[in-house]
C-alpha cells in the first residue's frame, strides 16, 4: 500500500484531522487501483475556504505530490466543518489524474502549475467522467459549465466535452487535440497563474 503523508498535522486554523484525511486517500487509492509502490504526499492549505477551491496533482521524483484547498474539504452548508463525502470525491479525481501522470500516455504533460486553463479543464472532465463510472456522485452540468468557461459555449465545445466525459482512455496528446479543436489553445494567456491559490 502507498505511504500517505498529510500536512499540516495537526491543523491549527480548522478542525480537520490529518489521520482521517490520510485514511480517505488510502480508500480513494484502492478505488482507482493506484500503484501501491508510489508514495503520496498531500498538502492541505487550511487558510483557504470555499469558494476558493482547487487541487493539483503532480509527480516529483517518483512521488505523488498533491495539493488541495481547505475549501474543497469544507461542508458548504456547515462552514468550518469537514465534509468526508466531498473530500472522498476530490481525492479520487486527484488520484486518477496522478495515475495518468504515472503512465507513458501523460509523460509529456507539464506540471499542473504550467498547464493552460483549457488543458486543465479538459483533463478534469476526463477524470470526473471516470470517477462517475467508479460509482461516485458527480454532477455533469457543473463539469460542463467549468469546461465551457475555458472552451467556449459552443456546439463544438459541447461535443468535445461529451467525448472526454465518456472516454475510458485518452492521452496527453488527446487533451491537446481537444484544446485545438475548441479553440482554447488560441485564447490569450492570462497574467494570473493557474496555481495562484497554491502560492503564498
Amino acid at each position, binding site marked *: 500500500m502507498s505511504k500517505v503523508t498529510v500536512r499540516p498535522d495537526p491543523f491549527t*486554523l*480548522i478542525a480537520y484531522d490529518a489521520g482521517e484525511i490520510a485514511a480517505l486517500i488510502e480508500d480513494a487509492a484502492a478505488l482507482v487501483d493506484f500503484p501501491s509502490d508510489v508514495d503520496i504526499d498531500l498538502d492541505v492549505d*487550511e*487558510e*483557504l*475556504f*470555499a*469558494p*476558493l*477551491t*482547487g487541487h493539483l496533482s503532480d509527480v516529483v521524483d517518483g512521488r505523488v505530490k498533491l495539493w488541495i*484547498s*481547505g*475549501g474543497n474539504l469544507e461542508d*458548504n*452548508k*456547515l*462552514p*468550518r466543518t469537514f465534509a468526508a463525502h466531498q473530500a472522498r470525491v476530490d481525492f479520487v479525481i486527484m488520484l486518477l489524474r496522478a495515475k495518468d501522470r504515472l503512465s507513458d500516455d501523460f509523460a509529456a504533460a507539464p506540471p499542473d502549475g504550467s498547464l493552460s*486553463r483549457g488543458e486543465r479543464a479538459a483533463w478534469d472532465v476526463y477524470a470526473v467522467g471516470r470517477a462517475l463510472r467508479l460509482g461516485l456522485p458527480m*454532477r*455533469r*452540468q*457543473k*463539469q*460542463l*459549465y*467549468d469546461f*465551457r*468557461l*475555458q472552451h*467556449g*459555449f*459552443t456546439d463544438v465545445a459541447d461535443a468535445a466535452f461529451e467525448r472526454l466525459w465518456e472516454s475510458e482512455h485518452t492521452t496527453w496528446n488527446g487533451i491537446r487535440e481537444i484544446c485545438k479543436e475548441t479553440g482554447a489553445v488560441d485564447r490569450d494567456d*492570462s497574467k*494570473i497563474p493557474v496555481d*495562484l*491559490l497554491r*502560492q*503564498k
Partner: protein
Amino acid sequence: MKKMLPESELARDERFVRTKIEDRLFDPRGPKIAQRNTGPARMGVDRPAAGERSRSLMHGIFVGEIQALEGAGRTCYDFDEPDAPFALKLDMARQCWDESRHCEISVKLGDHMGTEIGEYTESTFLFAAACNPDPVLRLCGVNRALEGLAIDVFNSMKTFGNESGDPILEFCEDWMLADEVTHVKMGSDWLRRLTEKDPERRERALEFQRTVDAIFNLGGFRGEDDENPVQLARNFRRLAGFTEEENDSLAELARESTEQARQMAEAATATLNASSQGGS
C-alpha cells in the same frame, strides 16, 4: 396574519441552511486570506476557482431574490392607508411578480451552472433591511439601496456572461437588470411623494439608505476596482434616477469600506500572530 415578520420566521424548506454573518466575520481564516493574493475578486474566467465562485454568487443572488420577494410582499401587507397608499401597494405587488420571475430565472441559471437549491448557505441580512417599521425608510432601504445593489450585481454578472461568451447568462441578467432599474425608480418616486411635505423624514430615509448601502459594501464587496467582486454600475444607476453626486458618494463609501476591511484584516492578523506567539 402577522404583521412585521422578523427574519427568523421566514419560511424555508429543508433544503435551505441559514448562516449568520458572524460565522464568516469571526472565521480565523479570514484575516489570513485578506493578506494573500487570491487573484482579482472581479469575475473572470481566468481567476482561480472561476466556476465555483460564479456558482456561489449565483446561489447568493437566488436567495436574495427570494428575500426581495418576501420584502415587497410584506410591504403590501404591513402598512395601511394613509401611510401606504393603494398605488404604492400596487407597485409592490408588481415588484413581487418581478421578483418571483427572478427567483425562477435564478434557479434555471443555477441549473445552467451546475448548482442546486440549498447547495450553499443562506444569509438573511438582506431581508433584515426590509423590516423597517416606517414605509418610507423601508422603501429607501429596499428599493433604493438593495435594488441599487441588484443593479450592480446583475450588471457584473451580465458583463461576466459577455466576457465568458455565455449567451444564457448575459441574456438573463440583462432582462433582470431592466426590472431592477424600474424598482429603483419606484422607490425614488415614492420617497419623493411620501415626504413631499416632510423634509426631515426624507433625510431620515436617505440616512437609512446610506446605512444599508454601507452594510452591503461590507468588506469591499462592491466598488470600482478589481478587488471588488461587484462593480458599481454607474450608467444603469443613472438610468434608474440616481444623480452623479449620489453615485460619487456611493463610490467613496465603497472605497472607505474596502479600506476599513483591509485595516480590520491587518488588525486581526496582528492579534492572531500575537496570540500564537504567546502575547496578550
